[in-house]
């Protein structure tokens, strides 16, 4: 397996090998699925749409519908206006969504299609039915990563929908960042627990984890509604989770509707979850109920119980910037030692932030943005670690190096738990800890000699 990978690291300036990121439009598609009765639309060749739908489906094991402008060579030369207008006419006639959420691709970006102009023309030509909306986000694949696309789409929700009626409501906007449907559900549960009213945007719970009841619903119950998106302009606070995924949306809302904003790290682990709960508590002027404090206590208890197994363990981890900041912070809380942290997404500031988090436990940790899994693999060949964390693509590295592997991030295409069980919040922390220790114990149980097998751990 991965026979060509050696410990000798050569500098690469042009060749990406085994990427730890993908392109913007898939993030825009995922975010758009978190809007109620919304059809994501990919403005480009149909292959983009097919690839994004396929990968989101493999990750969520759920229907992922989206439409495409199906560019041919002609459209690529003459522009995509005709294709998009035809598409909008078909989409509204056949699939009847409330919103069509158009995102661009590298193709339509390079030819410079002006989407707002095409939308305007479509309105003038009566293609967009009364009361329905077409929105857009520019998501060039050659800038940033899939998380950038998610962020750009979230900002577009604000730019197109948020309205200020002048009357501030006792509601908090929660921009959850790129997390799982199960995570969004958990964030809502926690917000309910603290007792604040909120609007979550986007919200893929009940969309990408819909029940099997014998009926297919193209637009499941879930998703933030257009009315709610409009109302975000009247909330008294926006909380953006995950700086890369959510900052641009909450800042745009602040600018547009004067809604003050606060950007927090994704609530993974103890202190990041504390920050989220505390922010909600202060915002809602409520107190944290004992149920949530008990949850927190149960997580800390489990961390204490398991600390003999986690303490000092070296971890190699790759994923997306926001996920990594919080997950690595949690690893540090667990007494673990991040040894190498890699993301494919570019970001110098992120590198600096990671260093601040890790320095107290390991000043020599290798921290790289705009890097790849191949680099991480080469590095751990020369510097063995106790645990690898990352998305499904890490399994080949884990197998080659025989290192325990915990799946985390996007995409996870070969396991099922991520769709059902959150990793955010205190309960999510317990799940992560369970997975980490299981990975250690499974390796021991498999490899320890018979006379050293422990019944109790």
């Amino acid at each position: 397996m991965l026979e060509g990978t050696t410990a000798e690291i050569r500098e690469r300036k042009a060749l990406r090998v085994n990427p730890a990121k993908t392109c913007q439009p898939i993030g825009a598609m995922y975010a758009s699925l978190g809007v109620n009765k919304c059809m994501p639309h990919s403005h480009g060749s149909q292959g983009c749409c097919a690839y994004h739908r396929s990968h989101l489906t493999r990750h969520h094991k759920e229907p992922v519908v989206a439409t495409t402008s199906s560019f041919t060579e002609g459209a690529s030369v003459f522009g995509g206006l005709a294709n998009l207008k035809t598409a909008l006419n078909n989409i509204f006639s056949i699939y009847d969504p409330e919103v069509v959420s158009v995102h661009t691709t590298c193709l339509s970006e390079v030819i410079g299609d002006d989407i707002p102009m095409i939308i305007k023309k479509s309105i003038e030509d009566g293609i967009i039915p009364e009361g329905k909306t077409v929105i857009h986000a520019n998501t060039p694949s050659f800038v940033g990563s899939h998380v950038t696309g998610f962020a750009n789409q979230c900002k577009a929700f604000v730019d197109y929908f948020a309205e200020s009626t002048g009357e501030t409501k006792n509601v908090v906007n929660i921009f959850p960042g790129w997390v799982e449907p199960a995570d969004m559900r958990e964030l809502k549960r926690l917000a309910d627990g603290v007792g604040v009213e909120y609007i979550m945007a986007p919200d893929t719970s009940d969309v990408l984890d819909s029940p099997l009841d014998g009926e297919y619903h193209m637009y499941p119950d879930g998703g933030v509604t257009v009315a709610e998106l409009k109302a975000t302009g009247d909330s008294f606070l926006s909380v953006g989770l995950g700086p890369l995924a959510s900052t641009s949306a909450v800042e745009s809302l602040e600018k547009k509707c004067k809604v003050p904003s606060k950007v927090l790290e994704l609530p993974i682990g103890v202190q990041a979850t504390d920050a989220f709960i505390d922010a909600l508590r202060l915002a809602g002027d409520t107190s944290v109920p004992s149920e949530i404090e008990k949850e927190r206590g149960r997580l800390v208890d489990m961390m204490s119980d398991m600390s003999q197994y986690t303490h000092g363990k070296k971890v190699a981890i790759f994923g997306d910037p926001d996920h990594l900041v919080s997950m690595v912070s949690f690893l540090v809380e667990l007494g673990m030692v991040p040894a190498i942290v890699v993301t494919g997404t570019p970001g110098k500031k992120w590198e600096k932030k990671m260093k601040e988090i890790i320095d107290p436990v390991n000043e020599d940790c290798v921290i790289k943005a705009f890097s790849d899994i191949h680099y991480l693999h080469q590095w751990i060949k020369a510097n063995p670690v106790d645990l690898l964390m990352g998305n499904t693509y890490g399994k080949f590295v884990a197998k080659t190096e025989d290192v325990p592997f915990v799946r985390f991030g996007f995409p996870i295409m070969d396991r099922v738990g991520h769709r059902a069980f959150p990793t955010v919040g205190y309960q999510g922390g317990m799940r992560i800890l369970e997975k980490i220790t299981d990975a250690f114990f499974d390796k021991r149980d498999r490899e320890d000699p018979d006379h050293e097998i422990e019944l109790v751990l």
Partner: protein
Amino acid sequence: MSEEATNDSPMGPHGPSAAEAREEMLKAYPKKTQRKRGKQMLVNEEPGTPAEIGANSRTVPGIITQRGCSYAGCKGVVIGPIYDVLHITHGPIGCGWYSWLSRRNMNKIRKPGETNFLQYSMSTDMQEDHIVFGGEKQLEAAIQEAYDEFKPKAISVYATCPVGLIGDDIHSVCRKMKEKLGINIFGFSCEGYKGVSQSAGHHIANNGVFKHMIGVDDTPVEHKYKINILGEYNIGGDAWEIDRVFALCGIKIIGTLSGGVSYDDITNCHMADLNVVMCHRSINYMAEMMEEKFGIPWFKVNFIGLEGTKKSLRKIAQYFGEKELIDRVEEVIAAEMAEVRPVVEDVKTRTTGKTAALFVGGSRAHHYQDLFEDMGMKVIAAGYEFAHRDDYEGRDVLPNIKIDADSRNIEELTVTPDETRFDAEKPVKKKSLEESGFEFSDYEGMMRQMAKDTLVIDDISHYEMEKLIELYKPDVIGSGIKDKYIVEKMGVPCKQLHSYDYGGPYAGFKGAINFFKDIDRMTSNKIWKLATPPWRNTGEATAEKAEAVTA
């Protein structure tokens, strides 16, 4: 309203006639879309003389389609599976990432020291400045870095949409680096916007493989019966099952294009006596070009399904015409069937009369009908995702196919007989066999095999699929990942016929056993029965419904 169809109905026990279903499906569309889709949806009224289908035409923008792009057909399908070629996608990161190990074209290294590059995704990861200033330098550097680090025997480069638009000349970069590094390096202009589907990418791939790989190595292959299998991609290990059966028969496969295959196999495969074609759509170009250049004849085979496998093996034996081979093939068939028969007899007690609908690929929607027939199941509707008219109606329509603007942009290579390597004996043998009724360069298409008055739907849309299921509730749908969970939400199992739901192989004899067991499991699955909670069946209204009534 038509009478409820009977069990003998070509469309199964439920729902209206195919013609009524077609009307129903078209009704929802705006006029222009209706006209366009109407040409791609047919009732198979005269299977013997199939009607003209509007295949290989543009997808209607805004329709939820199964189709992908030219890059997917070229890199993803045809060239991507060659394990010891180092593949570099030139473009932004997405295309290389999505096509990384997502197609299950299995491969393994043959000897220590080799690298299976299928486990790697390599890309130039184009950034904004490359788009503005051009990406040729980046590509050149990437090829150099790939060579320095991995020392491959060949490097293949794939263009994505922006590459063509900004005018990067990948071919001149490849030529330059080929000269510099002394290994074979070649590129494919398979930008996603070319053609109307993956199919354009297949053609581009065939051209490139033919130009840059076929005929490179003239090492003689000593064997009495030497063939290539074209259009077999080793999904789930299909090619390995075919290899096993051929080894038992004593037939040498030089190259399987391009499943489970190495660079050396392909460069040497023009030494074969015969090409047999599995997936006609993706590789008929190669079969034709190899015949032109080297004189190697070809015919269509199908190793999906028991009858197809037996027929194909016998035809290959007959081509060589030697008794020892003909007898050996019969012995292998008898031995293999002894193992398959009890399984199929058992499974048939549960599957006979059940219905299936298949919407996939450019050959699978046809090939898999054989396996369903083996199980006594009825295919009520089928269609390809990216095939052409000849795949539906048979190759005899080829002279009548109009070449439209989208296809005209795909290069058609002019091939002439090779001055030294054209084997003049092969056409002579072909001619004499043809005189005895043996068919070459044949493919009769899907529609001739399908029952009268069933539905044929090209490039099926989401809406049509939903309607089909609503009207007919087939016992199983064969389709792909994008449809799978949509179909299953409706309580109908969906077999992925691209990825085999991570199972397989399904080819040959052992593959057939796997397929029978999988379909038996899926169509007998009791989990679907749990979809409705018991209180919904008692006639009592749920809280939600009760509210609605009182409101």
